[in-house]
């Protein structure tokens, strides 16, 4: 396995409507996306049961 990174050659060019059509054709014809990961099942949401707790209204502090 070669351990090297190739430098890029670059240039600029004009484009017109026919180039744009070719690009769109390529995107339809050659675009290959792998399958998406299956969705993980969402954990079942259980409503927490609210325990009825007696509400203490509080008694006044005992005074000696």
């Amino acid at each position: 396995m070669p351990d090297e990174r190739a430098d890029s050659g670059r240039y600029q060019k004009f484009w017109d409507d026919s180039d744009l059509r070719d690009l769109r054709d390529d995107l339809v014809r050659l675009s290959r996306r792998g399958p998406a990961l299956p969705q993980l099942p969402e954990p079942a949401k259980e409503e927490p049961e609210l325990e009825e707790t007696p509400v203490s209204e509080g008694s006044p502090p005992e005074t000696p």
Partner: protein
Amino acid sequence: MSDPSTIITMTQDVTTTVAVLVGGGWAYLKYVKGRVYADRAELTVTADLYGASGELMAVAVVTLANKGLTRLRFQPGAKVMYLYAARRMPASEVVVPAEDKIVVDEILTGHDWLEAQESVTEQVVFVLPKDDWLTLRFEAQVWAARRRWRRRGIRWIASSAIPGPDWQRGGERSDHAR
């Protein structure tokens, strides 16, 4: 004619005309001929290849820098990375590898424009079977949106070719050496 006010008025007219011509010429040279507000960009691509049993992963890094002084607007859906590949062929004679366009994918999808002097980098990953590839070539294309009333636009193209797996620099293929 010898009236001093007439002479002053004429002098002012001539001076104004010369100033307008000089200013217009300077603006033309600076902004039109000098293309100050032209779209300028620098696109680069590098690529690495990684191997696993039966598969290859190619990671290409694309960088786009707006080198101009204006915001660079992109043509919608026209920023792409092509992968070209050439299969190994008999090397008994000198040949230029025949490349096939294998796959294309959109890149820099989160960007509709790039501010002046701004740059963005993105990694693009391709997975392909570990075939007997001779070369893999990554070609990025970024198309600028057409200016109003223009029939043509500008696109920047950068490509980077790397040898297929098992090829060593300046020598035998590693599978022959083993």
